[in-house]
């Protein structure tokens, strides 16, 4: 009995081991069959990825490198990337990263492969790549702790899309100040009889700071004081919270505290909102043929100035290389190709705002600015690139928590549960341990 059992278990173990070995050989470390060179990328499903994907076969043909792309929605891609990095897995070579959100956290954990040595090596990066052609503030946002942690792939910033026909109908003009913006919203609410929401904006706690930032900065405030403390104890902070909560809460759709860009763009494209406060990126959603009911009736302007001037927020995504990548050379080839001047122009022609300055001046690209909306859009984007603040929230290692602290407090004002003054005090108290010495953990 016993020898039979032992023999049986040995057979099972050997079979399992050989199957595992076969599995590792077939897909292990991401090597394609036949020993071809491979790069594994995890990308978020957003306009950049959708525009880039059709060109990947060209890259594969040019380089002989097989590209395996996994695309997920924002939350899922973030989770997939994080788990892969946490497990030090070599299965992912390239990933999309938002330096303003997870940059410090990932850099502290050592997840990014620094790209400085790749960029500075002429054998790996020829002069034709024109590394200096990237917008400097965007490139700076990809430098953390003195290391280059990614290459910018796009540029965006919060703006206000508006319905030109409704503005004409209600006799209002593009606001120059935040006070005028509130006054316009009030007029729309009154004159539309409540049938049109004056504005659709972000209320979801984690998403809110992106569009709230300019309201704060336009009061003449930076996120942090010169001593590194939060600036929410200043009177301007209370005013910024009050303005934002009134605009988005009082003049926004019901249930706005759960809304992000998806809901806002859907409302605007369906003709239910007169304005949309969101990213320049959303132009593709609200002008999508077939789903947009407001085509030809859209204009766009920068968030109006406040007492402290006009200070838009600028944000960019980047392509980063995992420190644990199994195919670093191939990964750099892929990043270099996706961010090259030629590919950036191709992507710009598909509506992806390029972080390369020369692309926006290219005659081919200029020829695409053939509608009033596209011309205005490029103008507001130029302002964002030139003067934008790259800090979406007070910089900290635990940036997601920082944004939640701000979002929750502003939401409470929108819900009428707290005053703006109490919310500001709550944020000040909540942010102190997060942004203090080195950003906490």
């Amino acid at each position, binding site marked *: 009995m016993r020898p039979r059992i032992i023999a049986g278990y040995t057979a099972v173990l050997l079979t399992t081991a050989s199957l595992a070995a076969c599995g590792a050989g077939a897909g292990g470390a991401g090597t394609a069959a036949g020993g071809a060179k491979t790069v594994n990328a995890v990308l978020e499903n957003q306009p950049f990825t959708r525009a880039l994907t059709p060109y990947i076969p060209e890259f594969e043909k040019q380089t002989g490198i097989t590209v395996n792309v996994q695309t997920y929605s924002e939350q899922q891609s973030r989770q997939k990337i994080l788990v892969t990095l946490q*497990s030090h897995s070599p299965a992912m070579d390239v990933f999309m990263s938002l330096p303003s959100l997870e940059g410090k956290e990932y850099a502290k954990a050592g997840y990014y492969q620094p790209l400085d040595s790749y960029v500075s090596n002429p054998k790996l990066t020829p002069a034709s790549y024109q590394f200096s052609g990237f917008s400097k503030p965007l490139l700076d946002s990809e430098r953390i702790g003195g290391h280059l942690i990614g290459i910018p792939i796009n540029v965006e910033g919060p703006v206000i899309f508006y319905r030109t026909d409704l503005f004409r109908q209600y006799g209002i003009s593009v606001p120059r100040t935040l006070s005028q913006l509130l006054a316009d919203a009030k007029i729309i609410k009154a004159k539309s009889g409540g049938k049109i929401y004056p504005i659709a904006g972000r209320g979801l706690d*984690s998403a809110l700071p992106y569009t709230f930032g300019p309201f704060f900065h336009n009061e003449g405030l930076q996120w942090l004081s010169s001593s590194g403390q939060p600036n929410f104890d200043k009177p301007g902070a209370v005013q910024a919270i009050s303005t934002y909560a009134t605009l988005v809460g009082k003049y926004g759709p*019901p249930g706005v505290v759960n809304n992000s860009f998806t809901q806002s763009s859907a409302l605007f494209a369906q003709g239910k909102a007169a304005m949309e406060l969101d990213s320049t990126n959303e132009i593709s959603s609200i002008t999508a043929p077939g789903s947009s009911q407001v085509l030809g009736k859209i204009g766009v302007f920068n968030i109006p100035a406040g007492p402290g001037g006009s200070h838009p927020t600028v944000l960019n995504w980047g392509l980063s290389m995992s420190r644990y990548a199994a195919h670093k050379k191939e990964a750099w080839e892929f990043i270099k190709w996706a961010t090259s001047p030629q590919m950036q122009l191709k992507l710009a022609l598909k509506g992806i705002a390029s972080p390369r300055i020369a692309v926006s001046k290219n005659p081919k690209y200029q020829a695409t600015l053939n509608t009033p909306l596209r011309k205005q859009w490029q103008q507001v984007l130029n302002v964002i690139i030139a003067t934008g603040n790259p800090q979406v929230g007070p910089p900290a290692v635990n940036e997601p928590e920082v944004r939640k602290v701000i979002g929750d407090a502003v939401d409470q004002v929108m*819900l009428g549960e707290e005053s703006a003054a109490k919310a500001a005090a709550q944020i000040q108290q909540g942010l102190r341990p997060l942004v203090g010495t080195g950003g906490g953990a």
Partner: protein
Amino acid sequence: MSAQAAVHDMSSAQTVLAPRAGTAERGRAGPGKGRWDRNKWRRNKGALPLLAPAIVLTAALIIFPIAYAIVLSVTNWQPSGTLGSFAGLSHYAHMLAHDPLFWDSLRITLILYICCLVAQTLLGLALGYLLSLDVPGRSIFQALILVPSIIASVAVGLMWLLIYDPTIGVADWITGGLGLGRPAWLGDPHTVVWAFVLLDTWEWTPFMALIFAAGIRSLPREPLEAARTDGAGPWQTAWRVGLPLLRPIIVIAVLLRSVDLIRFFDTIYVMTQGGPVNSSTTLNIYGYRIGFTDLNMSYAATLQIALLILVIVIAGGITWLRRRSQVE
């Protein structure tokens, strides 16, 4: 003897004379039960190799993760993957004494648990009774009402997002039509929990009803008929005879739903991510956020250990009640 007394006696007699299989045996277990029996071990040791795969799987899938979570909760885990310094019970102390969100999430978890369980048990009993009746087309209806429970929870969440949508949702259209106003179901901290109670009750009541229907159909007919012969009305028969006989089935169904309800996660994650302002943040949502958004795995493990203890206490309590009622 009144009809009511007769019914009472009948139910007691049935419980005493016809105990469920295994209950009386367990009740009569003599001294030494559960103790180490060397002879028994010698007789059965040949079974060990056959049990080995199950033991290895249990260790790998249950014991190791729990042990690792405990280790994480007493260390300061670093995002680089190292466990960091020993933290002792400081995470537990912080959770209990300095984290109001832990208590809020515990409160929300318990509110959801109690409300959903009560609603689903009561409605499930009523629906289960209807399903147990022999009417034409019963099997078709039985298959149809199970649809909510077999749809993936993420799909259910996305569907109810549209139902609760304040601008195009049917929920507001109904409440508006009834003159009850148009609440921002998911956008108001005062209504969001009730919105999830409604959703979960819609999703899982059919599951409870099916269990109850099967239980009702398997009940012995004699006590019920005897009660009716003695003059008990339908309600008395159901309340005094049917329900006590059905109690073991009810306890099992409640146990199954309890374990699932305590770790309420998927629909909330899809629909509100715990908002607005943490008003739908359950312990599971909170633990997920701390672990996967804030990258604080040690504190997330501490919260999950608290959740595990809660599940064990509730499941243990229900099991204890079941055994006690069976012994009686």
